[in-house]
């Protein structure tokens, strides 16, 4: 008999090497969450700088209250999918509110952000269609594309000219064409050059989807994401997003203006064959989105904090993931062993950041990835900069 798990032995060996250097960097336990920016980890109060909690909204009293009320009124779970017994008035209310926020005619809510991409890619494209996806796309996009059965063509990251070339190569083939880009890329923090992609769209004619997972609530004068910031919302056919970052809950959504958009509810397996979001999660998402609409000061604080951390790291001479300020600020490191060592040293000094290693990163990069929150104080940001100076910059200089 061939043991099915034998193929994972190299993963076990790599994980053992990591554990030998300190604690589990890819499964760290938060013993207690004290606030959007603090947790107790290994008996120590730790600054959280790798949570994607961009708006710092997870402990907002109004959101907590909304969740508590929903749980009391609707119960702990829905015990069914949206196409069976799992569509509650709350789900419909959230979809209506979100469509209004996004200025889109239709919105469909999913149980997780991952499922939103699985559902949207597989609902929009089928085996006769082609999906052109950015090389640095999130795994949920790749997995959704695979689920669709469509032909998959990968174009060079953020390169509209490369997309143009690949579209030209496929000219005359049957089926529809979907191009997928992201607002902010989760590993390096760079934005898609949306205006350039829109120009290619006008030349070739295709449907364009933007995954605003890391930019929804964060970018743009109204917080609608990169399309809002770039002023090209009318040219983006479909938006995907998540509630697990700026909204501080769990869930995801797809939105658009297409007259057949609602039909996707009956064509997306990841929507149809899973239980719908729990009432408490839907209610907290709804409360948070209402806040994002009327509290632009959260975005202002996030921008100020991001700019401060970015400038601080620049001042240390760190090699960063991109040249533009966003709440995702990644520091490139030399190799896996030194990255793990520095990650452990930062944690011991009282700051948690994400560790990101190949193949989860583009170009085989080893990264210490920070995500900034509106709830960080300038003092927090300065402490993070000081610790990176002590742990990371000093090692790079050595």
């Amino acid at each position, binding site marked *: 008999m061939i043991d099915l798990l034998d193929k994972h032995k190299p993963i076990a060996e790599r994980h053992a090497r990591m554990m030998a250097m300190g604690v589990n960097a890819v499964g760290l336990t938060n013993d207690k969450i004290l606030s959007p920016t603090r947790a107790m980890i290994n008996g120590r109060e730790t600054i959280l700088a790798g949570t994607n909690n961009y708006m710092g909204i997870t402990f907002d009293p109004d959101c907590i209250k909304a969740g508590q009320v929903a749980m009391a009124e609707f119960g702990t779970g829905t015990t069914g999918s949206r196409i069976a017994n799992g569509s509650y008035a709350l789900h419909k209310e959230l979809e209506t509110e979100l469509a209004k926020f996004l200025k889109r005619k239709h919105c469909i809510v999913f149980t997780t952000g991952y499922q939103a991409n699985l559902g949207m890619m597989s609902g929009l494209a089928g085996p006769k269609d*082609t999906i052109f996806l950015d*090389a640095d796309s999130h795994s949920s996009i790749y997995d959704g*594309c695979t689920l669709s059965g469509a*032909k*998959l*063509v*990968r174009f*060079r990251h953020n390169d509209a000219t490369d997309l143009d070339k*690949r579209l030209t*190569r*496929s000219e005359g083939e049957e089926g529809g064409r979907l191009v997928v880009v992201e607002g902010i890329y989760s590993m390096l923090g760079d934005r898609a050059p949306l205006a350039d992609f829109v120009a290619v769209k006008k030349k070739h004619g295709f449907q364009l989807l933007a995954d605003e997972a890391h930019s929804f609530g964060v970018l743009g004068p109204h917080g609608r994401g990169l399309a809002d910031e770039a002023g090209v919302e009318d040219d983006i056919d479909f938006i995907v997003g998540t509630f697990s970052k700026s909204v501080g809950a769990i869930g995801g959504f797809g939105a658009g203006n297409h007259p057949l958009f609602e039909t996707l509810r009956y064509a997306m397996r990841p929507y149809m064959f899973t239980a719908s979001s729990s009432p408490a999660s839907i209610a907290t998402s709804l409360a948070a989105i209402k806040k994002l609409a009327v509290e632009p000061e959260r975005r202002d604080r996030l921008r100020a904090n991001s700019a401060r951390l970015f400038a601080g790291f620049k001042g240390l001479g760190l090699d960063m993931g991109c040249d533009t300020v966003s709440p995702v600020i990644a520091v490139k490191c030399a190799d896996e062993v030194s990255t793990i060592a520095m990650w452990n040293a930062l944690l011991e000094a009282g700051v948690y950041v994400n560790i990101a290693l*190949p*193949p989860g990163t*583009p*170009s*085989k990069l080893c990264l210490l990835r920070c995500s900034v929150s509106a709830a960080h104080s300038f003092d927090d940001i300065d402490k993070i900069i000081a610790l990176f100076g002590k742990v990371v910059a000093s090692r790079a200089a050595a």
Partner: protein
Amino acid sequence: MTASPETIDQICKLLEPFNSTGKVLSPDTEISADLNIDSVAVMDFVMEVEDHFDIEIPLNVVSETHSISDLAAVVDARVKKA
């Protein structure tokens, strides 16, 4: 389907920068398994192949090619089609 020796030779040259093992490349070399190249690097390598031959090799096809000769056969077929 047999691949042409010229295509195999060109693919080997394109693959060399991704080969950190020092192993000598041959038509039977399994690109991912033998050279310890992860899934993202394989896709990056195939992009280089696409641009070199000015053809399209969808990811669905990449997942079914394992050896250098498999890939070369795909390239030959697609160059001919183009």
